[in-house]
């Protein structure tokens, strides 16, 4: 029986036997659309189009509703099903499964929406009912051209790549590696750790960043299942979910990592001192050969070629002279690695907003204006001042400090989004400054956003400590005094909006709570991995609420700030979640892809190559020998752009073929339904 139905399924043999199922959805639909009339109409007026049965039922998605359909398929030998109910985004799966249970190929079932697109948006019952009929007629005409499809099954390579060695990436890598699968962790900098490694304390608990991060970094470095590729960047991604081929450039460290013992003598002896504007945020110095920080993983230095005297003048080699294991390799070249992985997790993080762009805050012009990252380094015991919070002169402790919120955030002149972490970060600074210097601390905020667990409690605590809060966006920071009391100070000019007056508050130090920005090259990264970016440059998730971890490209997941500003707990959570998704895939060993794909009918292909440039997923290849184009079904994401572009009509798009769309148009226009006026 089942087989028989399948056998009849192709539109070529025998004619269609279509079942139409109209859902009441309680009163959601029935309240506006006369579902009974619609069903009767379909049975009568669409009979000659192959409708053998039309039913209406309270809740089609209920098990009873589904059984109704399954029963008809079996007993009436239906070979097409139309369900007129809610949005296919809600229940398409449900009804396809029902059909499959009854032995009908799931892709011979089509849903049309008469709730989101009819009953919920229209009030005129007659018109709504008429539209429901039109929509159903469209569905019926369309489904006549459906053909049975088989989901595309691809194997999943258990190896996974994690790009970005910040806290989110570290979390993902460890979760997968601990589950017993191999991970390639690719990091652009010489060490993993990311921004978190630069911090001193973390809100709201104030535990030391290094204390909680270092152990994780160490286990990454020593984990048998993790291949750690630091000082490396992804250059190219080929393939598709389950079978990616990733090209990674391992930049020349100029050090033999095997021989090097990480003793550090080379850094000690290197005569060249450079301002470290990555790890030390420009506040401290490093050598031309360096490991960014003592707990670096791997504990192997790199030679900063552009700044190395040897590469400049051809002499020096101080590092080489003193290196006992003889691990210095001035002639070492970049390595290109090709790695096979099944899934990829992008955790590429964020860049800090460049506070110099807000010229009225004076960063870069007024010495004692600092950015949040600079303060992280100042407060850090391992930082350039051993944790002493001092002015730019390197010695004086500030007596009064102003902390400015929303620098570069919530501002149409810069970034119009909220950077999420700044309020809490500012409160943390208030606490640290107060604790270490006893200075008077001001916080200047537009709105206080302390939304998560224990955050508002921390706000309370900082208030108790005596931090002064001023509600108002700081207008300017100036060193031009108007009165005696302002001489030699930085003056913060702001409207205290709760008083309704302009205030000028003299302080010794200003801290700009600078916002988060997408990586400068996030758009290129997105292109490399074939995912999409918001206008700002944050990676776009598959669904903002229900799937903030996957992307529109199968097999590519995102975690941490690359998806949008977030704090450490959220980054860790998202990193773990991404890992869980990947592990799920690996466990299944293979996965089925929606068979909505484009394919070329070689006989028709004229080899004009018009389609060749259109595919952003590189699914289209041209065979010079046969002068025809071919589409790789696993790479194809089914957008259909090439189908629409082919002048010869040689490309077909399964699930959305020209026949199907054309027929649906006729159906919607009620062309095949006589006796029925085209009502609207």
């Amino acid at each position, binding site marked *: 029986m089942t087989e028989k139905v399948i056998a009849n399924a192709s539109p070529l043999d025998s004619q269609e036997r279509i079942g139409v199922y109209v859902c009441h959805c309680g009163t959601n639909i029935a309240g506006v659309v006369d579902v009974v009339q619609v069903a009767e109409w379909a049975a009568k007026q669409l009979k000659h189009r192959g409708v053998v049965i039309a039913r209406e039922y309270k809740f089609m998605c209920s098990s009873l509703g589904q059984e109704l359909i399954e029963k008809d398929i079996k007993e009436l030998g239906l070979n097409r099903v139309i369900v007129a109910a809610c949005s296919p985004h809600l229940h398409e799966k449900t009804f396809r499964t029902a059909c499959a249970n009854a032995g009908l190929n799931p892709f011979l079932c089509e849903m049309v929406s008469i709730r*989101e697109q*009819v009953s919920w*948006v229209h009030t005129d019952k007659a018109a709504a009912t008429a539209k429901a009929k039109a929509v159903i007629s469209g569905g019926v005409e369309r489904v006549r051209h459906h053909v049975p499809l088989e989901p595309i099954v691809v194997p999943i390579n258990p190896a996974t790549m994690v790009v970005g060695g910040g806290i989110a990436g570290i979390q993902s890598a460890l979760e997968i590696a601990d589950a017993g699968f191999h991970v390639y962790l690719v990091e652009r900098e010489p060490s993993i750790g990311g921004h978190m490694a630069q911090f001193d304390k973390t809100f709201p608990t104030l535990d030391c960043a290094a204390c909680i991060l270092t152990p994780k970094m160490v286990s990454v470095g020593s984990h048998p299942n993790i291949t750690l590729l630091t000082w490396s960047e992804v250059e190219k991604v080929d393939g598709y979910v389950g079978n990616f081929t990733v090209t990674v450039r391992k930049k020349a460290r100029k050090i033999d990592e095997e021989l090097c013992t990480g003793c550090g003598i080379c850094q000690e002896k290197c005569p060249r001192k450079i301002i470290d504007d990555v790890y030390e945020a420009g506040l401290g110095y490093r050598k031309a050969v360096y490991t960014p920080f003592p707990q670096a993983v791997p504990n192997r230095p790199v030679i900063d070629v552009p700044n190395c005297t040897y590469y400049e003048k051809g002499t020096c080699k101080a590092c080489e002279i003193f290196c006992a294991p003889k691990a210095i390799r001035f002639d070492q070249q970049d390595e290109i690695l090709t790695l096979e992985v099944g899934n990829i997790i992008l955790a590429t993080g964020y860049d800090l907003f460049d506070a110099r762009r807000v010229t009225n805050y004076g960063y870069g012009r007024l010495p004692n204006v600092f950015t949040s990252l600079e303060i992280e380094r100042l407060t850090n015991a391992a930082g350039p001042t051993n944790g002493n919070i001092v002015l730019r002169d390197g010695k004086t402790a500030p007596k009064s400090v102003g902390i400015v919120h929303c620098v570069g955030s919530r501002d149409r002149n810069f970034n119009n989004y909220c950077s999420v972490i700044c309020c809490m970060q500012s409160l943390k600074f208030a606490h640290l400054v107060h604790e270490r210097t006893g200075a008077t601390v001001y916080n200047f905020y537009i709105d206080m956003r302390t939304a998560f667990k224990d955050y508002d409690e921390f706000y309370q605590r900082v208030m108790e400590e005596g931090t002064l809060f001023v509600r108002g966006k700081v207008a300017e920071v100036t060193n031009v005094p108007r009165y005696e009391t302002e001489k030699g100070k930085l003056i913060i000019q702001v409207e205290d909006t709760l008083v309704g007056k302009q205030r000028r508050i003299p302080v010794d130090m200003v801290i700009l709570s600078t916002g988060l920005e997408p990586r400068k090259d996030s758009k290129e990264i997105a292109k490399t991995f074939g995912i999409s970016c918001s206008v700002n440059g944050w990676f776009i998730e598959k669904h903002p609420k229900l799937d903030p971890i996957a992307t529109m490209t199968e097999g590519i997941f995102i975690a941490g700030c690359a998806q949008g500003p977030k704090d450490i707990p959220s980054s860790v959570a998202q990193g773990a979640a991404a890992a869980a998704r990947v592990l799920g895939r690996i466990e299944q060993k293979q996965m089925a892809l929606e068979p909505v794909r484009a394919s070329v009918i070689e006989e028709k292909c004229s080899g004009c190559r018009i389609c060749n440039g259109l595919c952003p997923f590189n699914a289209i290849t041209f065979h010079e020998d046969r002068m025809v184009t071919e589409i790789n079904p696993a790479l194809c994401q089914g957008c259909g752009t090439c189908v629409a572009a082919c002048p010869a009509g040689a490309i077909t798009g399964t699930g959305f073929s020209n026949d199907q769309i054309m027929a649906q148009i006729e159906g919607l226009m009620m062309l095949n339904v006589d006796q029925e006026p085209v009502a609207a």
Partner: protein
Amino acid sequence: MTDPFEPTIIGFTCNWCSYRAADLAGTARIKYPPNVRLIRLMCSGRLDPTFVFKALASGADGVMITGCHPGECHYIEQNYKALRRFQLMRRTLQGFGIEPARIRLVWASAAEGAKFASEVTSFIEEVRALGPLHWGKNDSVPTLTEAVIQQEEVPA
């Protein structure tokens, strides 16, 4: 008395942004006139110009094409192709002696249910003003300048 002219609009939506926008309009119970009937494509890039002409030739008075915002296409950049084809279609229609204003391109993200509804409403009114389309028999060809102005109105 005769009924007032009720235009019929065929709307093409992309699966990821504008169809979800339409869904959201529903979930949010935002009302718009019932004159529009939607067809779901995977991407506005799938829109074959012949679909539009087919719709108009089959009796539709206007066609609305919707997709993700530029830069937010879930297929990276395919909505730009839709934009180019849209320009082309307007010119072609003009050649046929049909007002280019009978087709409209709208960017709507999955979060813009309200925008989707208001665009549908205003488009229906615009087409209502243009009057019924009698495919082929239309002699009211807009002046070039009008057409140019309309071209410029295309969302970038």
